[in-house]
């Protein structure tokens, strides 16, 4: 973490599917595996419920990073949800990268209900990345900033 970022408290939104990743986050909690408080989790039934609109909305409203977590491919509670989500997010992230938004601000991780450790490690590394990128200025609505 660089010095000039000392004051920077990023806003990070994590979309977690109810069946795997949200449970993984619960397990991280009950195992007392800490990660920065900058991460706030929104529960969705499945990663396929995450609309690109939600992700852009988060950035619009001042999020510095958005991460989506779902069941591992093959393990989706709804059989196929994360497969669709994977394609959607791949394309969306590719587009954001294409228009010059730092790729590190978006991430997808598959975290199972048993992977409390992975959840915590993922969040730690993601937050670290956001600190290194600093404030999101390319993809926010300036009306939020005043």
């Amino acid at each position, binding site marked *: 973490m660089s010095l000039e970022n000392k004051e920077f408290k990023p806003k990070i*939104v994590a979309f977690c599917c109810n069946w795997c990743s949200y449970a993984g986050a619960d397990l991280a909690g009950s195992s007392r*595996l800490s*990660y920065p*408080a900058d991460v706030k989790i929104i529960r969705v039934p499945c990663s396929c419920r995450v609309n690109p609109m939600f992700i852009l909305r*988060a950035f619009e409203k001042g999020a510095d990073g958005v991460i989506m977590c779902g069941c591992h491919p093959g*393990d989706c*509670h709804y059989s196929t*949800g994360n497969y669709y989500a994977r394609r959607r997010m791949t394309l969306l992230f590719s587009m954001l990268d294409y228009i010059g938004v730092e790729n590190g601000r978006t991430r997808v991780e598959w975290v199972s209900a048993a992977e409390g450790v992975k959840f915590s490690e993922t969040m730690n590394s993601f937050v670290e990345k956001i600190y290194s990128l600093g404030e999101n200025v390319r993809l926010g609505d300036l009306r939020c900033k005043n």
Partner: protein
Amino acid sequence: MQRIGVFVCHCGSNIAATVDVKKVAEMALMEPGVVHSEDYQYMCSEAGQAKIAAAIHEKGLTGVVVCSCSPRMHETTFRKAAERAGLNPYMVEIANIREHCSWIHKDIEEGTKKAVILMRAAVAKVNLNAPLQAGESRVTKRALVIGGGIAGIQTALDIADAGYEVDIVEKTPSIGGRMSQLDKTFPTLDCSACILTPKMVEASAHEKIKIYTYSEVEKVSGFVGDFMVDIRKKARSVDMDKCTGCGVCQEKCPSKKAPSEFNRGLNTRSAIYTPFAQAIPNVPVIDREACIKFKTGKCGLCSKVCQAGAIDYDQQDEIITEKYGAIVVATGFDTINLDKYDEYAYSQSKDVITSLELERVMNAAGPTHGHLERLSDGKAPKEIVFIQCVGSRCSDDRGKPYCSKICCMYTAKHAMLIRDKYPDVNVTVFYIDVRTPGKNFDEFYRRAVEQYGVNYIKGQVGKVIPQPDGKLLVQGSDLLDNRQILKEADMVVLATAIEPNPDVRKIATMLTASIDTNNFLTEAHAKLRPVESPTAGIFLSGVCQGPKDIPETVAQAGAAAVKAIGLLAKDKLLTNPCTAQSDILLCNGCSTCENVCPYGAITYEDKEVNDHGIRETRRVAVVNNALCQGCGACTVACPSGAMDLQGFSNRQIIAEVDAICR
């Protein structure tokens, strides 16, 4: 505008130690819609729930936010409490300030700040919540079991004994499955047929059980409690009602060159056949590809010799459509194809066989009438080598990554049986690990080693080379002694990996039951719901869910039956109200949502709409709420936003995003 009450739980010190709960309650009052807030030691306790009920009554709350542990823990508790107090249960949302906050943050200021934000997000969501009503759907009191092996038979018997109708659909001409092919069973060495056939007879005689053999499931529609299934009864060419099972046709049939499926192709059978003597039903089928009558039009011998006049060459496939409340998958397994393991010379030598083939060789009704002999020359073997983990625990794509679980035990069984019956035969087993976790399993294995003198070598076989004199040169290594081993053997037996029946993928797709990378059906929860598929109304029995031996299979079959009975015992089912809903005024009728729905819950109908005064007929999406499981895939596929998910609506999630980013 909602009237929201916010209830902040201390959870003893679990939350209160790192979150200033009073502050959270105080901040809640600043949020739009919040008219009441309080904190309490244990919100989930009787007293805590009473506080929620009291506030609902006194303050006329229309929404409740509980800041507490994970919703996976107590969401149902609080929703029920609210419902008892007269509030729609879906007006309750949980802010997870324990697992997602107090337990992972040490700094009280940081923890409190985050808890406030999580509370805000929940309040923002509740502001947009709408009361939801769980719907009802009826239950057809009949179960379908797909697969007539020991798993399917046991499940069917258990369900039938509870008083419900059960149909078994079996692909082959007889029920019995893999177990009917086995000679003896571990760890007690009792005869497989002796314990299986009574069950087969019981099933066929049971008044509640109907068996469709030589049949396949063709199409499944509907949903939990109300499945509609098409079953294809393949043409048997024999009238089941007339046939007496005398067997004369099979004796007289001139075409006897078809490989016997039951004997794994080690010998042949007639074109009109029952797979094995104890087959149920004891009615043969005509293999139309092998039958001379069907191939050339001449012959018809079986028809001539049949006293009962049961032969019917004109019989057609028949489609039977039936309704079921529950479906149990018991499709079992097969051994993997060994093409990729040619180093073991399976395709080059008749004396390299799989363990399942050995079962047939050892069986009195098998191709050698139970005599242990080389299939190439009929000579008695003196040296037999068993190779373990052929295709199991494999790290590359030649085999399977998992342990097939049964091989260690049946190899010990084979070794023991051979040494018992033919003490002059040397038996060597190459293994990676010997896994014996089961009741009396390790004792069994130790008997093989200690009492029967089976030679276990920890190490893998690199190659089996057929020699000109008919012997097999086995090149292996002994890892414990760290040396290479060259061994001449008369027979090599491969403990071939098992895999789910190849048909299961097709069946899983029909059932929208999820399947893992190895084609095993996925259970709803690996620990807590091991015999249910995540798809409601679909249950899993036997090896289709994962490798297991007979006792485990029977236990799981019973468990699956209990789950199915639990479902069939209900008259009505409550459906999940968090389902997708289509706004017909916004719907384009493009079918995109239909294409991503894993449940076939979306159909398209031509509907009369009134779009701000314009009346017209439009093709619009209609969601069947009983089928919809609420994943939300359709909501994102829908470009116009016509499709939305109740309980997790676009606006609700956006409100949460906004609250968090505020």
